[in-house]
């Protein structure tokens, strides 16, 4: 399979995603510069974390209008899997591929720590190596991860089983105390209607190596590699 990582000025988790993809796919992804609208044919597009354009205007707002994003939206609508992590999630909401917005953390501080997540939707190309109800531990590192949408949108996300992950206790209970940023209904990640676009605040690429303290992020990349591998 072929994957592309979109690199914007200010991206800073691009290399981390590259390493995680290489580990699972066995080859390097294409590192694609945001200013180049000619995106090669790929099976997966990843928009990594960072501070694209320094978070000026609003986190992700400017990167959402970069030359390559028009093509990313077209590909996403044609069914190509698109994964947006952290700032990538913010960009996906800004360019309309996902509903809602990511507001400043309720605690008004940047927060970097491991969080427990409950897997809510195992039936996607991103999450099929997890099982529903599984608790995984991966880190968040953000200033604007407070997911917000109106009740109608939230009800629709819930009704269509489009919440992929929720912040929870190590035992899987979804409580206010386990919500690191004030996100509506403890939402950590959501899917589009066709379930080929996933935006999430936590960083699976950061815990895909036992030496770094855990491997709960790795099944996402392994799962993508399996699902998107050319049929033998």
């Amino acid at each position, binding site marked *: 399979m072929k994957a592309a990582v979109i690199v914007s000025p200010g991206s*800073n988790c691009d290399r981390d995603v590259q390493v995680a993809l290489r580990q699972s796919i066995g080859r390097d992804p294409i590192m694609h510069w945001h200013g180049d609208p000619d995106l090669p044919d790929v099976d997966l597009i990843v928009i990594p*974390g960072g501070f694209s354009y320094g978070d000026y205007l609003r986190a992700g707002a400017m990167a959402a209008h970069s030359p390559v994003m028009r093509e990313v939206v077209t590909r996403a609508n044609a069914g190509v899997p698109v994964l947006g992590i952290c700032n990538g999630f913010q960009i996906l909401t800004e360019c309309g591929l996902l509903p809602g917005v990511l507001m400043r953390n309720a605690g008004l501080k940047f927060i970097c*720590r491991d969080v427990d997540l409950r897997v809510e939707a195992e039936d996607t190309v991103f999450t099929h190596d997890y099982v529903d109800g599984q608790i995984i531990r991966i880190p968040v590192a953000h200033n604007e991860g407070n997911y917000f949408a109106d009740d109608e949108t939230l009800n629709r996300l819930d009704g269509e089983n489009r919440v992929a992950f929720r912040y929870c206790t190590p035992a899987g209970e979804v409580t206010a105390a386990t919500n690191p940023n004030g996100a509506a209904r403890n939402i950590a990640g959501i899917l589009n209607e066709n379930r080929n676009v996933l935006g999430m605040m936590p960083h699976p690429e950061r815990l895909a*190596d036992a030496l770094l303290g855990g491997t709960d992020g790795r099944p996402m990349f392994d799962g993508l590699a399996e699902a998107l591998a050319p049929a033998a």
Partner: protein
Amino acid sequence: MSGITPEIVAEHGLTPDEYDRVLRIMGREPRITELGIFSVMWSEHCSYKSSKFWLKKLPTEAPWVICGPGENAGVIDIGDGKACIFKMESHNHPSFIEPYQGAATGVGGILRDVFTMGARPIANMNALRFGSPDHPKTRHLVGGVVAGIGGYGNCMGIPTVGGEVNFDPSYNGNILVNAMTVGIADTDKIFYSAAAGIGNPVVYVGSKTGRDGIHGATMASAEFDDDSDQKRPTVQVGDPFTEKLLLEACLELMATDAIVAIQDMGAAGLTSSSVEMSDKGGVGIEFDLDLVPVREDAMTAYEIMLSESQERMLMVLKPGREDMARAIFEKWELDFAIIGRVTGTRRLVLKSGGEVVCDIPVPPLVAEAPEYERPWVPTPPSPLLSATDALAGIDTTPIIALAGLIASPDLCSRRWVWEQYDHMVMGDTVRRPGGDAAVVRVHGTDRALAITTDCTPRYCVADPVEGGRQAVAEAWRNLTATGATPLAVTDNMNFGNPERPEIMGQFAGCIEGMAEACIALDFPVVSGNVSLYNETNGAGILPTPAIGGVGLIEDVRSQIVSSGFAAKGQTIVLIGDTVGHLGRSLLMRLLAGSDEGAPPPVDLAAERRNGDFVRNLITSGEISACHDISDGGLLIAIAEMALSGGIGADISVPDSGIPALAWLFGEDQARYLITTISPDTLLAGAADAGVPATVIGITGSAVLTVGDGNSISLSDLRNAHENWLPEYMAAGNI
């Protein structure tokens, strides 16, 4: 006739004698721009005029040192064709005036010092000192500084992996913000600042120049008074996004062969970068200031040369490479301007509007900078405090004292701080903040660097020589406790007014102790920074020679241990001698509210012997956990290991004649705690090596027990440890 009056000279921080020297060098009255350049180059911050004499006493060489002090940062060889480039620098004065921007630009400045030499930064560290928690400004300063450090490093995508935070009333009016960056470069791709090649283009890249930070270096060389808030316009404003672009653009250009020399514009901006580049290269530089990218209209030559706008670099390129270099910087949407040429005159010549506004001979500007051997008096010794005397009339139990200490401002968890720092980005943070030293893998290899910052100012004020020794020894010990071989240090010397003999005595003493320890431990100083005049209304800070240490772990998959208990049922062994030294201990601060007596003596031979023994145990895989013993003594170290591992312990106090509280909380040096499943072998090995080793307990359950029946649950201990700082900070948000 420009009319330089004595008042103008005084406003520029130059003494009459220093101004006479300017007149002699110039052979005429200087123009105002020239005076400004002399002023900043001869400021304490840029010239090290009070400290140079003493800094020469520090050892700076070892077979693995590639470049010692004098360049933008120190460089050491870590094998496999890789070099580690690192430095620590203060941003104390700006951070007190404007904590967010002051701290943020401190991080930005030290990052540039490291990547200007060709390294990709891989980790940030810091050493922070604030006033008393009760002081009305402290909460605001802690919040602003921590957010500023995080704001800059997080956006750059460079992990902030550790540091230290202290509180003491002596910092009420002068906080300390010392930031350290560690980077990795190829040993054959290190860039230096010496300009060369007559006629070569001199290029300005990065942000535009504005009026911010003019005379920042001069501000950093003066005491504060009650009107210091009015100095806010001299604090620079940082833009980490631009610095991230500058980093990527510089590294992209450095991968080519276009650069002859490169220097970041830090303190004193365009002035110090151009003077240092031309002086080191033995050449001259000529600029047309009309070509400098400026942010504001009608900036004068004086303002352009003295601006401390951030995120700027000066480079000398090889001829013919200009277009290729310009294309890289334009891709990253940064300014790129050829503003001058290298000349053979050894003069700094500046033109503005077609006229020469500055023409200074560079060699005397640098070589004849004032250097003072200021008068000093040694610090009077403090009497040794006997444990029995210290504890007379004190009625407490070890568990009560432990619970108090672990929740004190000195020893409580710093989680509230480091959770605001992205400490995991770049995917190589093997040991996160909170242990002895951070461990960061060298990307794409199985090797790793251990990094720490250390200093115990309350020891330094009591005995600067012992305190200097201890700061170096503790950094060495913290690296050793991860399994690393300590390689080199950077120092950040923070002191009061050097014109007071007792302050110079503190400086001289700390240097003496540091030098002894660096020599004894093969731990040379490769870079550093001095911050003097940390005084407000005549009251100085505690002498604070912060040490940043770096060590190497050859195989991070096998030659490393955690600082937390790894399993239940393991034997806990104390390495090193315990006499129960309570002078300047945190126990006495807690129980008696006093900082009295002599600090614990440092036996450098014992440090070396005990540390080498422990490191061998780690690298050979014989122990399962290791933690050094420092602030708060043995029982605090036990509690930290228990909390980190989530496993309790049962500790027995030996019948040694030392009072139990002194044995448990004394701050004797050269000690470690380790855990093992084969204590007999370990004790035999220690006896052979002449290393004191004592079995003091066993790991297990979720309770920490000391002696007979005195115990505390780990959850109570954790609550006490974790709650103080967040509660303290939240109390300000009423």
